[in-house]
């Protein structure tokens, strides 16, 4: 099963390698991983997507917690939560594709007449997938996509 795990860590060098190293050393796969500092610059927040049964996920959470710079770990998969990923798509500007992209909710952030445009699309992983298949693959020059960042709903914050 797919799990989205959010992690707060000390914002210091090498933390990302420790987390990635934990996964590689135990043969777990990281599907996506996003990281950036939070409002508190001494803390970084990661959103990590991985797959595994409950037993494996339990071990992953415990092992993450065991890493010294890790402050907090939460598996938000079982909670009501939101996930948003970003896709940037460079497309040959033909056949009204630009219009189609805009209709889907994408924002055009760069455009050269009749040559190409770059669309920016944010949404849940499923929405990003749907948008991606709505554009004729034949005309896509390149795509760059983040994994999702996630946050559970409700008034309570996941903070230090």
């Amino acid at each position: 099963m797919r799990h989205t795990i959010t992690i707060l860590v000390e914002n210091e060098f090498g933390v990302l390698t420790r987390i990635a190293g934990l996964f590689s050393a135990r043969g777990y796969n990281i599907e996506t991983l996003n990281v950036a500092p939070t409002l508190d610059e001494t803390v970084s927040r990661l959103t990590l997507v991985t797959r595994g049964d409950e037993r494996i996920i339990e071990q992953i959470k415990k092992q993450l917690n065991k890493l010294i710079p890790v402050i907090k770990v939460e598996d938000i998969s079982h909670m009501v939560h939101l996930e948003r990923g970003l896709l940037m798509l460079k497309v040959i500007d033909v056949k009204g594709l630009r219009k189609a992209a805009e209709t889907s909710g994408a924002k055009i952030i760069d455009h050269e007449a009749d040559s190409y445009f770059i669309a920016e699309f944010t949404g849940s992983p499923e929405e990003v997938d749907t948008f991606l298949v709505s554009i004729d693959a034949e005309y896509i020059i390149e795509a760059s996509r983040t994994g999702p960042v996630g946050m559970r709903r409700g008034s309570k914050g996941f903070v230090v």
Partner: protein
Amino acid sequence: MQMTGAEIFVECLKREGVEVIFGYPGGAVLPIYDAIFQQSHFKHILVRHEQAALHAANGYARVSGKCGVSLVTSGPGATNAITGLADSNADSIPNVCFTGQVPLPMIGTDAFQEADIIGITRSATKHNFLVKNVEDLALTIRQAFHIATTGRPGSVVVDIPKDLGFAKCDFVWPEKVNMRSYQPRTSGHAGQIKKAIKAMLEAKRPMLYSGGGIMNAQGSAALLKTLAHQLNAPVTNTLMGLGGIPFDDKHFVGMLGMHGTYEANMAVSHCDLLVSIGARFDDRVTGRLDAFAPDAKIIHIDVDPTSISKNVDADLPIVGDVGIVLQQLLDELSHQGGVPDLEALKLWWQQIDEWRAKDSLGFEQSEEGPIKPQTVIHKVHDITKGNAIVTTDVGQHQMWAAQHYGFKEPHKFLTSGGLGTMGYGLPAAVGAAMAAPNEPIVVFTGDASIQMCIQELATAYQYRQKIVVVLLNNAYMGMVRQWQEMFHESRFSHSYFDSLPDFAKLAEAYGGVGIKVDTLDELDKALEVAFGSQESFVFIDIAVAKEENVFPMVPAGAALNEMVLA
């Protein structure tokens, strides 16, 4: 007050109460060695290989109850230390290792003797630090000791670039260490403690199983004994937990696992409650997992939450320091004033006594020889009255020592359990001798193992340590040979040596006393010499029965109750 980084290093170790460190100098740590030369707060023991520095620090830590400390240089010095770091981490022994690093501006340039020690040691340590500012040095050292010694203890590396040794700053000693991301839990959850006691009082066939955790929490061995007596429950120890309860206590049923006793393994296989105390269900203990303690409710007490339900699902997990949790259990037991099910326990002990009657550790020693390795261990036990600090390497001799020496107290058996490091025994004894210079110290080793770190005889000689090295020489890598005999149709692929050195002469060349033993008579005389008043180490090279195997044995992949008895 302004100090150089090297002076800060010395000051921090002094304030941490460090009395001895083990190390080997080199270019990147020369500023620190210069500061060590000019101080008298702690001793520095010069080993002959960096791996030995870590093992010695490990041995020192296990006997003294303090944190082991070592100092090695950058590049090869640090990479040589990796095995010792991994060993300490696997066995949860507090060990702080300072590694020199090339100067900061040269990091990443493939400079002479540069290695990415943070990268290399990440998975072999509990944590590691690269110090990039001299202002951070004192706090980092403080955090390193804190991390190494608290929670589940382990090894911590502090990598110090050479130029920091010369750089100056004001010395600020952080009185308290407060790390928001590292807050190990020490006491068990009160509700879980209540449930645990209820389960213990209701059990008809209880079993206590304790591991290395019983050593880490000082004083907890006595609490274990009290709990076992109050519950009238049998106790088994893992290899790491030997000495956690006296070998001659009637509640002790011997070690469990691959080379455990018949009664311990059968009792675990048939118990209805298994209480794991500071042990982690290693595969050498459990045998085939789906047949491990199949009828038992499992209570798992461990300071490390990742150990719980990693291999075996716990019905009742208790996260906390073993010593504190045992005290909580005893308090709860007296609070409830309950008594265990005495009728059921009577039957349980009858059953255990029947298993005991198999005498699974029995062996026969013929008067004509050859000398059985088990005989040697028994004789050493008798002559030291079971009070020696025993270290071992890894292999058959290690298992015979575990099975036959008979440990009365914790902190007396130093062996490489988790990582299984050949070459551990002699340097660990060097460390133990620093912690307890007046106690008898015996290294049980094999002809293959001893050659992994034999150069440390020089260290033992330099510091006039009265270590007794007992070499059970069967001219084989014994355990490898045993497995090849049992599982590879006796194809002894590269498990023997064509040329063994004359160990007695080698020991003499290193400055000690070397004795060669072929007969039982010679053995008695040699042991008398060894444990008499000697000014140096004694090395006894004993020719033992070449093809003796370690029994009983649970073959790998078999269940505990599928033991091979002989």
